[in-house]
């Protein structure tokens, strides 16, 4: 299982698409930085099929004022959980 780390929003880049087509069936996706826009209900549809495997970094949502707008399908994690996600994954792949 790989952890994919994405820092781009589905609205301004096709990098999220690249990440998605590269993901294996058990891989996880963590949204960080501007990537957390993908956790908004209107944009989380881009990540359909990742239920339970889609995460967003709480600190980056909060710094953008989006914490209360996060889609229910997205699992919120803090930086300590980010560390845990990297521990649990075999490797990490960063998309930017």
């Amino acid at each position, binding site marked *: 299982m790989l952890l994919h*780390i994405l*820092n781009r929003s589905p609205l301004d880049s096709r990098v999220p698409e690249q990440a998605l087509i590269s993901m294996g069936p058990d891989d996880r996706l963590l949204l*960080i*930085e*501007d990537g957390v826009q993908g956790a908004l209900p209107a944009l989380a549809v881009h990540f359909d099929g990742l239920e339970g495997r889609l995460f967003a970094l709480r*600190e*980056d949502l909060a710094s953008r004022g989006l914490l209360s707008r996060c889609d229910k399908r997205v699992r919120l994690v803090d*930086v*300590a959980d*980010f*560390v845990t996600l*990297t*521990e649990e994954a075999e*490797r*990490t792949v*960063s*998309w*930017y």
Partner: protein
Amino acid sequence: MRYAILLLGAPYSHQAAHSALRFTRALVERGHEVAGVFFYHDGVQNAARLAAPPQDEPHLVDGWTALHAEHGVPLQVCIAAALRRGLLDEREASRHGKSGHSVAPPFELTGLGQLVDLGLRCDRLVAFGP
């Protein structure tokens, strides 16, 4: 576990440097070993000795320096990426006939082979891009 960090983003242009520093601090707090932070591409700008951001903003260069002072984390800067961006330590400045230097310890100019070595030696290599 043993970790390495690859930082490719310049400070104050992208969030990458903030993210990398925050994540590295969290690694240390968890008790992991951080075998090195490798600064590459525009990430080498994090080693700019003369950086003087406003006092009410995070000082990233000082942040990395403090991480080294507190936990001995090696700060390795790609020499080829640094030199072409005007980031030279005393030795390189002298070699190229420059009157000042812009990189100082604990940042060390090093080759790309060090990144390969980190990748081989570490359990995890986490990259932060622009």
